[in-house]
């Protein structure tokens, strides 16, 4: 037993100030690690280090390296520059970063990039079908993003194209909170949207999205027919209300960050770690949608499965950028999404 333990690689995950319990992106990565170690050895084999601000990124990376960890996991593009600088200086320290593919390629760095637009397309379809099922003729859909940028744009575009595949001229509203950790902003926006007749809101905004789910839960509890869609992990739990038998989270766009962490850890363990860019998509089951909510109607599920098949077969190609989607005449003008 001793040996098996010691044979396991050691790893540290470095996050920004929001920490590993943002119930979203970082949480998923952290979950992957715990899964890999089946929850044994926190503080010895694996641990998480939280930065106070971006001024701590490089010191934290170097301190971690100095502790001799086999692998360093960083999450989010905000780490990109620090990681690039670090990898150049510490060629023997294995590092992975999620959501980045543009860093200089070095042997000690794997960059994991996700094709979130595919998963987002599915939840778009699900939301639209649910509306149809509820007999809403011209529903309005909302999107709340965290910090605007190409990554989040992929979520928004996929979502929109999914909806439009059902309601070609559905109305879309969007809002960017400029923060991953400000649920109060999302809740304020969600409340006024729901008040003005928005049917479903998909928030890809880390901790900020909690506000949307809270508002949806409040309104469903009050008998209003509105929905929230979770992101990254299955946020069904967060949407529970009343006697906790029902959730306001219709479905969640699953972005299996845990896959990447587990993948990296396995490679380190088997000594098959090679630097480069790894793309996670529907093929690799890196993205998907959640079916936990019993209220998600059958039509929605079947439609989603169909869409999934088409994406896998390449029959459907979901756009990645706002520009492309607009060019294709799908995404409306005047959204907050940006491509760089």
């Amino acid at each position: 037993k001793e040996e098996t333990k010691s044979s396991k690689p050691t790893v540290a995950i470095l996050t920004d100030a929001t920490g590993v319990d943002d119930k979203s992106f970082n949480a998923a990565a952290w979950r992957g690690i715990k899964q890999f170690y089946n929850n044994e050895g926190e503080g010895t084999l694996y641990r998480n280090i939280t930065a106070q601000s971006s001024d701590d990124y490089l010191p934290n990376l170097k301190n971690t390296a100095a502790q001799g960890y086999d692998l360093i996991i960083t999450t989010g593009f905000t780490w990109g520059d620090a990681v690039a600088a670090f990898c150049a200086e510490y060629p023997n320290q294995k590092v992975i970063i999620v959501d980045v593919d543009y860093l200089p390629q070095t042997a000690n760095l794997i960059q994991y990039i996700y094709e979130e637009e595919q998963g987002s397309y599915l939840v778009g379809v699900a939301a639209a079908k649910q509306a149809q099922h509820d007999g809403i003729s011209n529903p309005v859909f909302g999107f709340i993003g965290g910090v605007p940028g190409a990554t989040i744009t992929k979520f928004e575009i996929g979502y929109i194209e999914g909806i439009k595949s059902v309601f070609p001229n559905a109305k879309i509203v969007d809002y960017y909170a400029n923060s991953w950790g400000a649920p109060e902003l999302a809740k304020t926006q969600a409340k006024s949207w729901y008040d003005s007749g928005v049917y479903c809101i998909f928030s890809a905004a880390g901790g900020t999205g909690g506000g949307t789910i809270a508002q949806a839960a409040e309104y469903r509890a009050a008998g209003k027919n509105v929905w929230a869609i979770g992101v990254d992990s299955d946020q069904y739990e967060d949407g529970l209300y009343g006697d906790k038998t029902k959730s306001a989270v219709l479905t969640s766009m699953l972005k299996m960050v845990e896959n990447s962490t587990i993948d990296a850890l396995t490679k380190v363990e088997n000594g098959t770690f090679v630097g480069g860019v790894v793309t996670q998509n529907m093929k690799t089951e890196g993205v998907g949608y959640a079916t936990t909510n019993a209220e998600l109607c059958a039509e929605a599920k079947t439609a989603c499965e169909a869409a999934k098949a088409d994406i896998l077969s390449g029959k459907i190609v979901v756009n990645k950028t706002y520009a492309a989607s607009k060019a294709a005449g799908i995404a409306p003008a005047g959204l907050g999404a940006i491509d760089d």
Partner: protein
Amino acid sequence: MTKSSKSTNKTDQVWIDRLLASEGATSVLVVILGILSGTLIVALLGKNPSSLFKAIWQAFVGYYNKGKGAWSVGPLGDTLTYAIPYVLCGLSMGFANRVGLFNIGAEGQYTVGMLAAHAFAVCIPAFPGQWLFCMVVAVLAGAIWGGIVGILKAKFKISEVVATIMLNYIALYIYRLVALYLFPAGLTNRTYRTADLASTSILKGVFISESNLNIGFFFMILAVFVYWFIMEKTKLGFSFRATGFNKDAARCSGINDTQAISLSMAIAGAFAGLAGACVLLGSLKFGRIMQGQDNYGFMGIAVALVGNSKAPGIFLAGILFGALRSAYSLMQFMNIPREVVNIIEGLIVIFIALRAGLGKVQEYRAKQKIKKAREQEAAK
């Protein structure tokens, strides 16, 4: 027997009075108290308090770097790097303090300094010595932002506390507007981080290559000296101190208090502005991640208070807070809850406020002395 006991309590009276009288000593006491309370909390959590001290110790002397297989003083480098903005913001707070103002606005002056440095580091073509140019404009920007507060205070009698709180937030949002909308980062996936800075605007590293320690450190030392020189040695400092102790008397004797207040706030702002430049141009070799307030300015308040608003005191206090900041990261490897650092910092400031209580002790002892004296008279 009695004699000896008498003499002993005489002596201890003397050193107690000395201690109570000396601001430096009480500051040290306050810091020790703060760290001890932190230790207590760690112990209460069943964690090993010695790890807390180990982390702080490493922040000064470094550790054995398994990654490189050699001893590394990187943490010391980080400590000193963090100390640059802490000391400079401390100077900002302290300078205003000596003129009788409470400059909560160092944060905002820091931000506009950073903003100015940023603008000139991204929007104009690179040229040698650009870093120095950026620093200068940062200093000017900070000075202007601080000067505004001074003018509002001196001319319009607006509480500098309220004014600076307002200006802090205004500065923050203006910086975001400029950095994100005026000079957006051009490259894919890099939003919410500023555009790359011209390579010629980056501060050179010094001494400790394993850290971001850079020439900003020398400017910080220079600032400490300038602070001391202006305050203690020049006629300008004289008029500042006079205004600080008694605005009306200073005015009545011909010192232009309006000018003194505005000017001193401008100088205070200049220190903070320099801090902004040092952090922006020094911390990362590329653009900076935009987030909320960096809190260097607010910590500057604590730094100045611990340092009694005297140049050497602020310098030492700044180093201490820098060490706590770098210990913040180190202690996480030792399973010490990092919030302990914030708690220690908060307690230190609170203890400083409570320090006023020592004045009461002194008063009491003075009364006792008089009583004693009279009793002795009565005895005769």
